[in-house]
């Protein structure tokens, strides 16, 4: 059922080299092809639209669920997934989408993920995007992520676009209740004529909620990137956005910060920087024996790690 290309895509986006431990759902070319629920994590197909419901029982600890999507042809796939992360649980959710487009038709995956992180639950969500294929057809990924974190909950997000995605629009909305915490790590690499847009909106509505967003990107060749990161504090809360981009060649990067406070005890910080690789960094690594190209690669690799 899984061919060599599929396995390569799964390894790239979900670090899967075999059938994963725990619950999983593998979606290929618009259809769920392999699925397994466990005693604590149930995966149920939706009946009204394409997608699945993932239900994590309250109190589930140290379990994971993998839900990768792969496209190996030029087609358009739209999926709606809903996650119920039960109170007091602690789980890892590994998503991600890999596209292998060998032809001239557009291959596009739009994924709408909605999460409910219940009271005191902790969820780590890892989403990797990757594209490949020699065809002229575009590889497009548009994830929409909506997260509600209830009182005392923790959501940790790693959102990574590795390479080969021609166009992406990432739209992430998070709402944080009292004492909840959000940590977002975003890594984005574009090259050639690729375009990427990332919109992250965080609403801190509960007292003592906190959010930390660290976004790092590298734009090469003629690629374009747009970041619009919003923090909105409606309560006694803390929020910090750090957005760093390395720009190379003829790329274009825009970073639009927006922090809004609607409460006197909301403390919000936004830091943004765009620049090329500092010549001092290159020089330092060259004095250690790296060529200029090797030094550049080491800097970029570290930056996006």
């Amino acid at each position, binding site marked *: 059922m899984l061919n060599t290309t599929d396995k390569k895509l799964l390894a790239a986006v979900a670090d899967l080299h075999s059938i994963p431990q725990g619950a999983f759902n593998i979606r290929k070319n618009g259809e769920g092809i392999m699925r397994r629920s466990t005693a604590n994590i149930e995966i149920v197909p939706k009946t009204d639209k394409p997608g699945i419901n993932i239900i994590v029982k309250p109190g589930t600890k140290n379990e994971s669920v993998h839900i990768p999507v792969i496209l190996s042809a030029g087609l358009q796939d739209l999926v709606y997934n809903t996650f119920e992360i039960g109170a007091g649980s602690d789980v890892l959710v590994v998503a991600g989408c890999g596209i292998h487009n060998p032809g001239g038709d557009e291959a596009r995956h739009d994924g709408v993920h909605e999460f409910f992180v219940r009271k005191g639950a902790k969820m780590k969500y890892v989403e990797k995007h990757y594209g490949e294929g020699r065809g002229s057809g575009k590889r497009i990924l548009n994830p929409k992520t909506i997260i509600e974190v209830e009182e005392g909950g923790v959501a940790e997000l790693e959102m990574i676009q590795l390479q080969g995605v021609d166009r992406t629009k990432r739209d992430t909305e998070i709402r944080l209740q009292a004492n909840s915490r959000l940590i977002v790590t975003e890594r984005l690499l574009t090259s050639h004529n690729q375009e990427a847009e990332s919109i992250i909106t965080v609403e801190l509505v509960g007292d003592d909620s906190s959010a930390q967003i660290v976004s790092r990107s590298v734009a090469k060749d003629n690629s374009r990137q747009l970041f619009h990161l919003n923090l909105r504090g409606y309560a006694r809360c803390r929020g910090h956005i750090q957005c*760093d981009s390395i720009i190379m060649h003829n790329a274009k990067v825009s970073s639009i910060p927006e922090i809004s406070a609607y409460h006197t005890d909301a403390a919000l910080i936004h830091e943004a920087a765009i620049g090329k690789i500092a010549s001092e*960094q290159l020089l330092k690594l*060259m*004095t*250690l*024996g790296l060529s200029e190209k090797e030094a550049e690669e080491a800097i970029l690799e570290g930056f996006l790690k």
Partner: protein
Amino acid sequence: MLELIDVHVTAEDATGTVSVLQGINLTLEDNKIYVMTGPNGGGKTSIAKTIMGIYRPSRGRVLLDGADITEKSITERARLGIGYAFQQPPRFKGIKVKDLLKIAAGNNADNRFQCDLLYDVGLCAQDYLEREINSSFSGGELKRIEIASLLARKLKVAIFDEPEAGIDLWSFQKLIETFAGLREKYQGTLVIISHQERILRLADQVILVNDGRISETTTPEKFLAEIEIITADCRCRTDCIKGEVANA
């Protein structure tokens, strides 16, 4: 052995071409410690950067063990065994201390080796190896990691540019011991740019650089004796000026 023969370096500024180094002749022998000192802006760092290949001479030659390396790139010189610890080391977002030490050692740096390197510069490996070399580091911490990155390498010529700058007293003592220890185990040429008497005393020879030239090469003892006379002279003149202002 490293030789600079009639080396001139120029730079461009708002006024046009300016001379940075003017006819530097210098021979640095193996297994010796040289301390380069002199007034700020005199040309010490420029000499170091010319040896490393960061600055290119407009005239003159640089020889390593008799071979002309004047046209060699920074990378080629590094691979030939020349190293330079920057006066103001860069920070790296994403590169950890352990990553830098691995690059420096050619990926041959196991955990024990890295711990030893950091110990030599007065840092505890447990606290530092996993940290990114970013703005969370103080100037002194950054400087010590920079020194460790050079100690990680097997070099024929190692140049440390003001290694003491920004380093606290306790770590400075450790640094002195490290440099003193290098005399025993290091097989190459050690060049330290410094204004510190305790570092000057480590030298086999002190090289005084001023106004883009080497004005004197001498022993530490002679140099420090001369400095005392100059300092006394300066103090006298300063007092006179102060006195004149006071009397006015």
